[in-house]
């Protein structure tokens, strides 16, 4: 493949089905990249000292996609060598230990994709209109 054919792409998806690490990492693979960096956010079994049964996510979907696109644009400005970016976020009920978000970034060398992934998740948490609701057990701490 000629590098001019390997056009940098953003893959953004909000969906209620289980997320796949294989699927997301495969989206960003490129023969011109030696590095794929990944972040997986999974649901914890505790929040503020109480046991969590599951998390439930909702989104202002159209604006969330727009804000994630802005994040991708910012990533490409800060790290111009980044090739592909994939951000998948799950909506609805997410059971404990399952992934609520997966971010993958590819770049020729490792520093850029590692830094870009961290920037993506930090900025997503600060600016993308998505909300989680914890379903907790009442009045019980961790055993």
């Amino acid at each position, binding site marked *: 493949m000629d590098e001019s054919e390997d056009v940098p792409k953003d893959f953004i998806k909000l969906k209620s089905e289980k997320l796949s690490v294989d699927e997301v990492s495969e989206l960003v693979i490129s023969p011109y990249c030696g590095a794929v960096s990944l972040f997986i956010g999974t649901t914890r079994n505790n929040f503020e000292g109480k046991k969590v049964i599951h998390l439930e996510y*909702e989104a202002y979907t*159209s604006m969330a996609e727009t804000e994630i696109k802005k994040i991708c644009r910012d990533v490409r400005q800060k790290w111009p060598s980044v090739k592909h970016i994939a951000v998948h976020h799950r909506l609805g009920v997410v059971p404990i230990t399952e992934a609520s978000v997966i971010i993958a970034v590819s770049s020729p060398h490792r520093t850029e994709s590692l830094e870009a992934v961290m920037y993506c*998740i930090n900025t997503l948490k600060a600016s*993308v*209109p*998505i909300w989680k609701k914890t379903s907790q057990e009442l009045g019980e701490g961790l055993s």
Partner: protein
Amino acid sequence: MRVSVLYFARSAELAGLRCETLSVPRQITALQLWEEKVRLHPRLAVIRDQVVFAVRQEYVLLGDQVLVLQPGDEVAIIPPISGG
């Protein structure tokens, strides 16, 4: 002039609905728009200090900024976000 109002998360729980249309003047401050919503859904008052708006999908603080609205614009109430 009618705009669409969208409620999410805690604001949807307090208002008891997810969307409605509202008649507003073309020019209104963000604060005035909030007060109009609290008039319709008084339980929203408790989250006044935690919310921002999104007008045409751009964040707007609840202040004296004059919003210039078009018919059919989306105005969303945005409680503290917690995605990721």
